[in-house]
């Protein structure tokens, strides 16, 4: 039994401690907003926050999350978190999404990135690229991801 703290709630999960967080979220807790893309941390679609840091949930076992807080896309964009809300608003304003499948991961990486910046910092395009380089998008939404993150940073400043 592993206790996971997900989006402010504690859940007891009866699964092998080696089970990746991704599958505990999707298959046990029914939180399907976090996506599966590659299973080996190469594409970033499974990104969630673990104690505020972006991690790849497809390779991080639930045993590594005990005593820590997991935040998924569902909570990051529900209006309770100002950074997540700003990112979501910028995503909609810039019509970032195409197929949309990678965007949960993109938004979680962007949220973690903006949270990591000292308040009022406006990231450069190169900063944004460096922060987002681990998230693949086959539709090619990258130009709007750049614009949306810059915009979200401005609204948070």
């Amino acid at each position, binding site marked *: 039994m592993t206790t996971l703290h997900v989006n402010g709630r504690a859940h007891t999960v009866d699964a092998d401690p080696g089970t990746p967080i991704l599958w505990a979220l999707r298959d046990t807790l029914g939180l399907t907003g976090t996506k599966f893309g*590659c299973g080996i941390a190469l594409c970033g679609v499974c990104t969630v926050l673990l104690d505020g840091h972006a991690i790849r949930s497809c390779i991080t076992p639930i045993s590594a999350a005990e005593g820590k807080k997991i935040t998924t896309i569902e909570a990051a964009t529900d209006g309770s978190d100002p950074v997540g809300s700003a990112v979501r608003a910028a995503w909609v304003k810039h019509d970032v999404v195409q*197929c949309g499948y990678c965007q949960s991961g993109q938004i979680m990486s962007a949220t973690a990135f903006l949270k990591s910046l000292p308040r009022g910092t406006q990231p450069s395009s190169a900063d944004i690229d460096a922060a987002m380089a681990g998230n693949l998008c086959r539709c090619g939404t*990258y130009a709007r991801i750049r614009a949306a993150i810059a915009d979200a940073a401005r609204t948070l400043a």
Partner: protein
Amino acid sequence: MLPEAFTDALPRALQHLLEREQPIPAASMSRRTFLKLAGAGGLALGAFPLTAMAQEAAPKAGALKPTQQPTAFVHVAPDGIVTVAVNRLEFGQGVHTALPMILAEELDADWSKVRSRHGSNDPAYADPLFGVHLTGGSNSIKNSFVQYRELGARARQMLLAAAAARWNADVATLATRAGQVLAPDGRSLGYGDLAEAAMAMPVPEKVTLKDPKDFRLIGQPTSRLDAPAKSSGRQDFGLDVRLPGQLTALVAHPPVFGAKLRAFDDGAARAIKGVKAVLRVPVDRGGEGVAVVADGYWPAKQGRDALKLEWDTSAVDKVDSARQLAQYRELAGQPGARQFDADMAPLAKAPRHIDAEFVFPYLAHTPMEPLNCTVRVAADGAELWVGTQLPGLDGGAAARVLGLKPDQIKVHVQMAGGGFGRRAVPTSDYVAEACEVAKAARAAGLDVPVQLVWSREDDVRGGYYRPMHVHRARIGFDGKGKVLAWDHVIVGQSITTGTLFEGSMLKNGIDKTTVEGMRDPYPLPMRLTVHHPKVNVPVLWWRSVGSTHTAFVMETLIDEIARSTKQDPVAYRMQLFADQHPRHRAALQLAVDNSGYGKKRLPAGRAWGVAVHESFSSVVAYVVEASIRKGQPVLHRVTAGVHCNLAVNPRTIEAQVQGAALMGLSMCLPGAAITLKDGEVEQRNFDGFALPRIIDMPEFAVHIVPSADPPTGMGEPGLPPLAPAFANALARLTGKPPRELPFKLV
């Protein structure tokens, strides 16, 4: 193979299918094609495509009776919410915004109250021209523009008639605006208030469509209807389907396409907690696999990893990429089946020559959402939840596997996380596999829904690639760049041979999808011949299909002729287009004007590259700036000129062009090749088969040529000219034109 149930229904429809030269759909559908449908409260209107009507006459088509149709294209709820059913898969291209815009335009709906939903394999949702369910060939807007306008206009007329009856007024005195019917005396009624009464009105015989100058939605840059859900993790995709009791299946696939299982030991797999069954199942191309069915992906994967498998590959060809390339090169040295002919006598005595060989590898589609299909089987039918471009065909395959009739299969089309052609498989490979697993599970006592999931490794190694190609060109031209003779050979597998698309796509032994994009629009004396070797690697259309390679060959060679005769590549193309190709001219000129080409001085080490190409009836021109940094080509800036006739949603078109261009760029960068050794695919995941990342994304500007002509598609045409434009810039930097993708700079 051809699903038997469809053999009599499809050929009529397929005679046009994907025919690139087919005309823009002519207007009006007859009133008979519009049939009122009983909906759950409110107004429902459905359109029955002509082929569906034809199918109705056939003995099998009893299920197509309109009175039995459970679905509708437009539904106006009492609260005024207008839900538009979309007869196409949404997989990023924005069709679930653009088609509702078109319908809402003629309906005069309040756009803030418009929603969209997917159709199904119901006959209503077939392509109105082709009569089959299809998302492909950049056809959605092109083929359904008039259809959705007429649906909207008819629904509006019925709402007006209902208002006239309510007010006892002359319908001619009434007007509509943003979801309301307005009377001359100032009274108004919302569409929601009228919906139920409107449903009782006869479907009007004739409707007058708006004058395009009165459009208030069409042509406006419009936000996607799915943006909020997709920006918050609330959008469900096929992989997010969760049915009561559902289990997850992973299949161990043979290492070589079509190989059989000699023996397997599933003891360790069965011992894993959560594993419910291990099942031997038939897989694509006559192969065999082992399915592990479990209560979740992780136990299913652990179970699959624990299988001890012995494969029998003795009866299947084992492809080796190096050997295959040598064979292709040899074939390219001889003429094949003839597509175009011209007098090759001037070749020998031409003053100048280019002798060029091009190599293109297999490419995987790798949509970000791994392939999946959820199946629920009952005694009298089955339901499928799948993001598919061909729901009718996949439903037919499911029927074949499950021993049911096609009308016993319901395909719930799911939002798809990309596709790029991989969800339009003539063999229905992964859908058939999901049905095989569900069938075997049911036989083993697991009477529950089963979700087949392909891991990324299954996807990368699972075949259905853009075919590998070798092109060989011998060109004779004069000092002014006039081509005297162009002898061209293409070697590559046929995509449609052996599929039900063969009848319409294969002519004189040549697959149209191999040669599309060759020669035209340039007036060239070209002899084009083709070899289609048989290779044990399944191949498929990959976004923009033949133009993925033909545009590269044509646009780099045209550029090379211009370069070698010291002519400006833009001026040279314009001279060849002459007055014959105004859309090419306009697209190229727009890109040139907005790029600064010919005016702006580039930083040292950068060069311009130009390419223009028509595919799927739209023309895209790129002017790019590129350089070479640490031996690697870098694309800095792209300016696009687009001609797609009327731009329905310029915002989506911009996104489609950027995305298609990035997919074009993906062909150029390291890691963009699927290779085989001893019959096995050598790449496994995104480490071996690499995709561009945000750092690879150039600055990008999209400009659209204004036009009021009926719209053409934009799902694919942005892809083909990117790689040649990039290559042409590199040729200017290095003096050596790249002739192999991905680029190999020395």
